[in-house]
């Protein structure tokens, strides 16, 4: 064990100067070459480790996944048997104005709110990572919004903040600006939901905090001895070592934003209004599937979304080769 400790420390010191990772190892964490002899044995072992996952995959996940893929090619009203209709659901999407409205809303939301939320979360994680008195209380305080984020109470809270006579407008009134409800204006409604997302920055913050904790203290000390300033230490130690975690958060939040449902469902009461300006993609899926009993169309839309997210994730993985540095290379 003492050996292990020494080793890990050594490895940590080397990490920031690690050479750029080779592409093969990125996705699986496997180093190419010279492991062949063990791989056969490891194949068996791996499947023992993977047993619960495989059962889950086959029994719980795969069935519904395949079912939904098949339903995408049918007309299915949930009540009578599905009817095969080929690609009709997909061609219908092409001509569906509301569908494209929902695509626009969702893309805006992903592109704007994810980076904002991550920067915000990293910034606060950095502040809170410092030894500060009352740390636990601040951290819990900052996490509270995330606990409330999906609650029914949010609809009322947001009305209190952004409604016609909400807190924001009262504040603006003090400096002589009169404004209408931010929730009922199609130009601003989506922004109130982006604020809601940034406000619930607790989850990425906790992940960042855990990641920051993984960074060996000795590196900072060594850098300080070498005369590196704060900014320098942040960019040459914190950021490089945190890249796998930043990447993780980016992927998680991106997928989450593509699938955002609760905020719009709660705040607009499920309509996606005003004028479809908060009609998130998944909200439209929900409306078609659960309100309109058109589960075939909903499934088709869901699979298009899956392909888009998969593509975006794959692009991120490819791009990550340039900027994410793993400790296991």
């Amino acid at each position: 064990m003492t050996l292990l400790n020494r080793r890990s420390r050594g490895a940590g010191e080397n990490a920031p100067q690690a050479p750029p990772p080779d592409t093969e190892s990125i996705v699986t964490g496997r180093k190419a070459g010279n492991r062949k002899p063990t791989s056969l044995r490891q194949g068996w072992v791996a499947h023992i480790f993977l047993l619960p996952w495989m059962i889950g995959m086959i029994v719980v996940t795969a069935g519904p996944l395949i079912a939904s893929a098949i339903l995408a090619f049918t007309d299915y009203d949930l009540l009578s048997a599905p009817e095969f209709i080929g690609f009709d659901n997909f061609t219908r999407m092409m001509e569906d104005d509301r569908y494209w409205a929902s695509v626009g809303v969702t893309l805006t939301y992903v592109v704007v709110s994810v980076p904002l939320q991550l920067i915000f979360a990293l910034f606060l994680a950095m502040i809170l990572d410092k030894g500060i008195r009352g740390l636990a209380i601040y951290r819990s305080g900052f996490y509270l919004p995330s606990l409330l984020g999906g609650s029914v109470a949010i609809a009322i809270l947001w009305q209190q903040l952004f409604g016609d006579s909400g807190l924001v407008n009262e504040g603006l009134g003090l400096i002589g600006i009169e404004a209408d409800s931010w929730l009922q204006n199609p130009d601003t409604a989506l922004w109130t939901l982006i604020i809601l997302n940034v406000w619930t920055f607790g989850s990425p913050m906790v992940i960042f905090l855990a990641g920051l904790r993984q960074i060996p203290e000795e590196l900072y000390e060594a850098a300080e001895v070498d005369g590196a300033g704060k900014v320098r230490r942040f960019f040459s130690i914190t950021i490089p070592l945190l890249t796998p975690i930043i990447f993780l958060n980016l992927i998680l939040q991106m997928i989450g934003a593509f699938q955002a449902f609760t905020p719009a469902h709660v705040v607009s009461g499920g309509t996606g209004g005003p004028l479809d300006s908060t009609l998130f993609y998944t909200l439209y899926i929900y409306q078609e599937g659960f309100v309109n009993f058109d589960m075939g169309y909903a499934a088709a839309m869901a699979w298009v979304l899956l392909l888009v997210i998969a593509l975006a994730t794959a692009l991120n993985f490819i791009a990550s080769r340039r900027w994410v540095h793993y400790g296991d290379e």
Partner: protein
Amino acid sequence: MSKSTLQDVSRRNFLTYAGVGAITVGAFALAGCSIGGGSGGTGTTTVRFAWWGGADRQKAYLAGLDSFGQQNENITVEPEFGDYNAFQERMTTQMAARDVPEVFWIPSPAVLTYRDASIYRDLEGIETLDLSAFSAAEIDSFRLDGVLDTLPKSMFSPVLRYNSTFMEEDGVTLPEDLTWEALSEFLIDYTKDNANGRKGTTYGPYHDMPFESFVRQHGEDLWTKDGKLGASVDTVAEWIDWWETLRKAGATTTVSEQDGIEASWSLTGNKVLATFANSNHIVDEALAFPDYTFDQRDIPAFADAAAGYHFVYYSRFAMYARAEDDRVDAAGELMSFNLNSLELLKLVGLSAGAPPNTSLLDEYEPEATEVEKKVIAITREIAATERRDRFEAPAGSGNWRTMFVRELEAVTLGDRSVSDAASNFVDAVTAEIETA
């Protein structure tokens, strides 16, 4: 050295927690299962009953079901409730899985959708179902396309509700002869003249019941017998126009003030003189503003309104088509209780509407609150009118309100003319019904 022991300790702790957790959970999960499977006691029949509402209603119905259980010791009722949306989400899933409660309420837009999915059981010939309180003509009016597969659990009609306290303070009275034109003028004048900055009404073209009445006054049906949208583009446009005139004259709260096309009562109840509503809404909504007195009356009508335009909306409930035979009698018993029990009515009150069973209403009247008496009065008044047939919303029309809201949003934001909105709406609803 010390580090390595600590490492072991913490790992062992971690595993201990995991182990203890697993055992505890296992125990609870088993407990959960046994609660779940435990209702099959000897000689009792279990009936699942699903409805929707808020805390007050849930509590009232649970109390009612308790006393039902005492009267029928061989029947166990399993309640399944939630708020309106949750109820529908669960119901949809259960229908897809063919796992529907034996007795359930039906959300108004879904009456024919559920019918087309054949989940209603024919109620004819169930011995325990006591319909003796209803005349043959009444029972006929409950039928859908000649089949008695649903029953009304409550009923209501559109009304014009007004704040009598404001009327008195501002010294105004509603026009004697309440036509749409007269009401419009009155509301505009009131907004202009009252000293307290109050508005005439909320922006309310979204209200489906007065809209339906407006359509019927034109001699059209909102939904036709053969399952189509019966309202013409012109009528829809005229309806929106009536509201736009008020809105442009400043006689309504703005969409921003009332938080959306669908006005929020708590935001507007102390700002407006009158609102359109359903006859039962006054029970819950008057509670929000205890300082004011509210009253209600029949809604406006054109001088030349088509005969029989009045209507009563039946909120329905039904029995599941696949209810097992041995549960049908028990389910019939439960439905009878809902239709005929004064005890239940005393618990739940009139917040969800008046009981269709008129003798029950008479018995209840002495117990009714002041506000509920206003519900009873208008219910009787409309029951006495001549009423031509009314048909339910066809399958596929389930989200017509959402479509209407979108058009109204476009109109109020100045993006669309009234006539375009009306024809868009009619086209969209027609298309949805056709694809269903």
